[in-house]
């Protein structure tokens, strides 16, 4: 089904994985333990200095395949079949000493969350040169010199001294680049990038992406680039392999995959995020009116919201966009009363809301619900789906017994999940299902406004798309308004009626969707819009060249 993109493997082949099979033993509750196959006979090959993008949803096996190139299986995962030929030998047969000589020397790894991957107790430089010294590639002086050169190449600020900082003293985007420097320091032949930009803001992502791309080009290292974002991988990869459920779907040149995908699934990935949403015209009085709100943490020490004013009209969606630290989530906390604002007022449905949560009547609480970003921590892991959705019914409407169960079933139906999920615990649901349950819990209260805090950013594109469609449908049926907090402009396009762009605690641009997304732009909105990766080869260079300002996180 997929063709080999370039000729037969010859001497300049660096990595050749043949019929890789990876299995794990699972212990499902109440059942016999069983062995599941995570990767089914996947083969790939990579030439020196080339970049192969591995893409797919979560559970597609992309990270598992990536790690197998270091003969590593994460968390009880076993490589049970196939060969991983690196530099002409099968590293699966090397034994633990041999593998240790390969890791950090011939293959290096860049993890998704650099913040979690660095040891907070050691200085960056010590961690960057560790592998180099361990393998005796260079002396400490040489290794540090090399590291500083890499810091400079990756355009880190103050490259001569950044190494003496601790991980918490640099930003997320910088840390990710330091990690790339760490991987490059021992001059390996292959680097595995495991979603290096997924946890970053779009505006930061573009910098990291550019740095990684330059570094790969200049050092002639080969790379496996793992991501679920096709637009990102299109910028750095020479070839792309699409994976699903541990099987290869399609493998081809980057241009072929994004321009003329041959498989239906690839096509779905390419065309995801295209929801046509006609914006509604704001009419009548706004449902929620935030006026001149200023809020701060630490007793007024750190101002995070400065004179923010926005309106939401009944049954419509206001999207609040901005990078992390711009105050979007704080706005939600100020509206819900979790963080009482210092100044300004919040008017809801014609009455002024008490600034403190504890002073609000139950009715106000009912009409204003919230859906969280991380669905798995937003639901009590020890409650069943039935309890989670049923509790608001009991609490606000005093429903009991059969009446409640009927309503829960109705709600489950609304979120396109069946009655069979009633007795499930959150740990037994997929990410998308958890988020749906979160939506049902909010809907159960029959609210007039739901605050959606980054509800799709933890999900795979296809699943997120389903959630957005569901939210739009439910808005039609229930006439509920949304305050939609996100950093993803593609999401905004498909769901918003009005948009507020936030930057460092202030609303820098606010108005109906069409108006906000029509030029002329202010500098920050322009940066945000131009940082959204487009599925187009060469976009990255164009975007970098056309930027008018730096992102706040850089």
């Amino acid at each position, binding site marked *: 089904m997929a063709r080999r993109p370039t000729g037969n493997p010859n001497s300049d082949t660096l990595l050749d994985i043949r019929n890789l099979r990876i299995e794990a033993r699972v212990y499902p509750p*109440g059942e016999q333990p069983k062995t599941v196959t995570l990767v089914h006979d996947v083969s790939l090959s990579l030439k020196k200095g080339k970049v192969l993008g591995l893409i797919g949803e979560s559970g597609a096996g992309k990270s598992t395949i990536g790690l197998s190139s270091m003969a590593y299986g994460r968390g009880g995962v076993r490589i049970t079949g196939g060969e991983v030929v690196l530099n002409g030998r099968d590293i699966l047969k090397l034994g633990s000493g041999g593998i240790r000589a390969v890791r950090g020397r011939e293959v290096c790894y860049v993890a998704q969350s650099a913040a979690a991957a660095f040891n907070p107790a050691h200085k960056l430089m010590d961690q960057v040169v560790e592998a180099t010294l361990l393998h005796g590639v260079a002396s400490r002086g040489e290794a540090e010199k090399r590291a500083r050169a890499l810091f400079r190449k990756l355009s880190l600020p103050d490259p001569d001294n950044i190494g003496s900082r601790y991980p918490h003293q640099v930003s997320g985007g910088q840390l990710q680049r330091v990690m790339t420097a760490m991987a490059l320091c021992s001059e390996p032949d292959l680097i595995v990038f495991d979603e290096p930009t997924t946890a970053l803001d779009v505006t930061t992502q573009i910098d990291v992406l550019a740095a990684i791309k330059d570094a790969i080009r200049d050092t002639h290292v080969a790379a496996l680039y793992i991501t679920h974002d096709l637009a990102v991988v299109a910028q750095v990869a020479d070839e792309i392999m699409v994976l699903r459920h541990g099987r290869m779907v399609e493998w081809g040149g980057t241009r072929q995959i994004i321009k003329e995908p041959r498989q239906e699934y690839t096509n779905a990935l390419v065309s995801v995020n295209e929801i046509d949403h006609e914006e509604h015209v704001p009419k009548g009085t706004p449902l929620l009116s935030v006026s001149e709100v200023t809020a701060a943490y630490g007793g007024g020490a750190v101002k995070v919201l400065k004179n923010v004013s926005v309106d939401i009209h009944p049954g419509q969606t206001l999207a609040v966009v901005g990078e992390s630290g711009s105050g979007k989530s704080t706005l939600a906390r100020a509206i819900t009363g979790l963080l009482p604002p210092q100044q300004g007022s919040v008017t809801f449905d014609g009455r002024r809301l008490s600034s403190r949560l504890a002073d*609000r009547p*139950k009715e106000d609480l009912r009409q204003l*619900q*919230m859906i*969280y970003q991380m669905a798995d921590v937003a639901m*009590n892991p020890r409650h069943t789906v039935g309890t989670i959705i049923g509790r608001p019914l009991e609490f606000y409407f005093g429903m009991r017994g059969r009446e409640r169960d009927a309503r829960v079933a109705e709600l489950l139906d609304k979120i396109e999940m069946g009655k069979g999920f009633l007795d499930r615990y959150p740990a037994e649901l997929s990410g998308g299902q958890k988020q749906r349950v979160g939506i049902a819990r909010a809907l159960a209260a029959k609210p007039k406004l739901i605050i959606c805090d980054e509800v799709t950013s933890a999900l795979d594109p296809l699943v997120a798309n389903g959630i957005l469609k569901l939210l739009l449908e439910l808005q039609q049926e229930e006439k509920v308004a949304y305050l939609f907090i996100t950093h993803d402009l593609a999401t905004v396009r498909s769901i918003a009626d009005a948009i507020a762009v936030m930057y460092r605690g202030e609303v820098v641009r606010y108005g109906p969707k069409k108006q906000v997304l029509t030029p002329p732009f202010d500098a920050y909105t322009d940066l945000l819009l131009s940082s959204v990766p487009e599925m187009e080869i060469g976009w990255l260079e164009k975007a970098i060249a056309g930027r008018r300002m730096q992102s706040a996180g850089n």
Partner: protein
Amino acid sequence: MLDLKRIPIGAWIGLILTALFLICALFAPWLAPHGNGEVVGDVWAPMSAQNWLGTDNLGRDLLSRMIYGARITIFIAVLATALSFSLGAILGFTAAVVGGWFDTLMSRFVDLLMSIPTLIFGLVVLSVLPSTVATLILVMGLLDSTRVYRLSRAVAVDINVMDFVEAAKLRGEGMGWIIFREILPNALSPLVSELGLRFIYAVLFLSALSFLGLGVQPPDADWGGMVKENKDGIVFGIPAALIPAAAIALLAISVNLVADWVLNRTADLKGGRGNG
């Protein structure tokens, strides 16, 4: 859900021994061949067909004393543990949820109590108060509750900042729901294993108190008291003091084994159903 075949051997031993001790405690009057204070023979008679474990310093049947002793020891330890747990956990959870001055006040007060060695504190209080079983339980429970308070507050502070607790607060839920329905189920696994450990500490503490003469008063005796009564015999090579001492050790070990197993079983913090 609970697969008997997957219980490790250590846990089996612990479970069986603990069950035996509990049976002794519950059915003491029916199991013991003689009365608790009944003198049946010579002082420190050796083991025989009539007196399986021999007799004690007053000629009472040691086996019967042991069985009644189990009842007293376990009864006091269970009640003291129950008191320390309900008090410590509820106050700890409340301090974590309420925060502010209540938390500071409670935590500093507990620090104050904990800064005094428990045994010395217990000795001073018990020598002042009348020696009844109720006082004993109260003093032991209160002193132990400081430890439980610390643990439950620490666990609850972590859970309290989770989004699901915030969601409950946004919903307008009262303190009762948040403590008992949101936090408690998630704090249960560390607390349950702590329960086992605290129970053992209660047994050891009680034994120490009785050995020092401030615990259970004669003619009743817990195991610690029995060690005290018979300790002089050791000089003459009479093992009567070692038997209750061994029982204390055995109980401690077997409850520990069970607590270990419970901790392993529920250590999976993913929630939902525990793994078999």
